[in-house]
């Protein structure tokens, strides 16, 4: 970044905030673009899996479809129900979207590209992803509608349950990496054998737990009981329209992309190359995240929705015991000479 130095001298003390804002914009703008095109990818991929061709009318291969959808939502009226608490009703979508975007502050895109290289990055991410549930609860409650309320209750219970298993899965990762810094976690997976050095091999059960909990955490199919179209219409955001709804939508998809990035950082070696003879680069990171996102869409196209009690059973009676056992196994394993990661 030598070529920026003259500007740095010119701005003096104002340089740091301005440069930080530029970096934030450089993360948020592509992220929102990715969210827009993830919706198109979702419709396309699910279409293909259902032997359809998906949207193809707006622009070539439907490439302008997300813009058309966004424009439509932008022009729509935001209706506040008469019995709703206006302040909470308006603030809820912001509370969903804000943590989904804030968590990106600590995501390392490659060795150098990270907005805030904090040492407790993993804790920060866990905190931010859990904050989103408050927006969901407030949205359901402020709407003053029984469907929205039931949806928010379901969603809150679900997110809280899966958070635990997710946390234990990450405990294994930080035990293996000996660090809470996301960049250090990726560097811990560096080695001479490419993808064999990544944590998804010793922590494979945790990888599955984290991936599935990630799907549940973002309220995606087959864990989308919070919205369950056939039961409670759209769940917590049933009363929202126009841009307020769009914010929930953005939040959900931004969270999906976040989970995909986290999965690739924790288990799939982040920006590291899968084979030793290719250089590490941010492209690997994006490719891995795209692969995990594709898995999300694949799940949605394949699996029917879980019943609510099955969902709770899976979270509490399968994932949490499995992850606790694996924490112990990894702890014991690391004391032996067979731990090569």
């Amino acid at each position, binding site marked *: 970044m030598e070529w920026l130095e003259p500007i740095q001298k010119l701005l003096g003390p104002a340089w740091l905030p301005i440069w930080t804002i530029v970096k934030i914009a450089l993360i948020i703008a592509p992220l929102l673009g990715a969210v827009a095109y993830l919706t198109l990818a979702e419709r396309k*991929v699910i279409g293909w899996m259902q032997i*359809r061709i998906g949207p*193809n009318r707006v622009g070539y291969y439907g490439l302008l479809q997300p813009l058309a959808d966004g424009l439509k939502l932008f022009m729509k009226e935001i209706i506040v129900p008469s019995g709703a608490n206006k302040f909470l009703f308006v603030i809820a979508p912001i509370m969903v979207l804000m943590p989904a975007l804030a968590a990106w502050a600590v995501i390392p895109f490659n060795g150098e590209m990270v907005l805030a290289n904090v040492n407790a990055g993993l804790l920060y991410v866990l905190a931010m992803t859990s904050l989103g549930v408050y927006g969901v609860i407030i949205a359901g409650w402020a709407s003053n509608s029984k469907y929205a309320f039931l949806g928010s209750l379901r969603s809150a219970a679900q997110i809280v349950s899966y958070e635990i298993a997710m946390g234990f899965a990450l405990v294994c990762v930080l035990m293996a990496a000996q660090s809470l810094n996301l960049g250090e976690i990726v560097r811990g997976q560096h080695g001479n054998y490419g993808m064999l050095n990544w944590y998804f091999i010793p922590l494979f059960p945790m990888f599955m737990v984290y991936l599935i909990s990630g799907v549940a955490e973002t309220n995606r199919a087959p864990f989308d009981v919070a919205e369950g179209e056939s039961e409670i219409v759209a769940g917590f955001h049933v009363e929202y329209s126009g841009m307020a709804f769009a914010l929930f939508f953005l939040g959900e998809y931004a969270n999906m992309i976040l989970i995909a990035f986290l999965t690739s950082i924790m288990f799939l070696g982040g920006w590291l190359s899968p084979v030793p003879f290719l250089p590490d680069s941010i492209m690997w990171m994006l490719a891995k995240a795209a692969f995990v996102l594709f898995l999300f869409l*694949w799940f949605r*196209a394949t699996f029917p929705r879980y019943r609510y009690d099955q969902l709770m059973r899976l979270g509490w009676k399968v994932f949490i015991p499995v992850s606790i056992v694996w924490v112990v196994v990894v702890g014991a394993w690391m004391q032996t000479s067979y731990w090569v990661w």
Partner: protein
Amino acid sequence: MEKIANFFKTFLLYELLKGMALTGRYMFARKITVQFPDERTPQSFRFRGLHAQRRYANGEERCIGCKLCEAVCPALAIKIEVAEREDGTRRTTQYDIDLTKCIFCGFCEESCPVDAIVETRIFDYHGESRGDLYYTKEMLLAVGDKNEAQIAKDRAADAKYR
């Protein structure tokens, strides 16, 4: 033993992976979407779409005002008024079909002794205001005049099954 095998099958997500293999295979299958305005699905000659009134080759309207269609119509969508014409024949002065009521059962066509009221292959018509789908005698005759060739062909194709 089977219980243990089942446990491992569930635990290793065997069925879920099988399901994903299926959808994954279909992702590359040939797509069966018919892109409607550009492509159309094949239609039967018995297709029951928009109604039409037919004429004989000499231009005389077929309908003799027997009101059988009005009587048989289960949706009460047909309204007919009849009067004697100057040449002494019985003709309709009013023959209206309310297409918003019509259920396209084809009974009117079946009951007609002179094949006057028929249903055509046309299905992509629309109305822009409330009254637009209330078809009068003139409109029905216009539809018939416009599509007589296709209508006659479809009746001929169906004739041997009647």
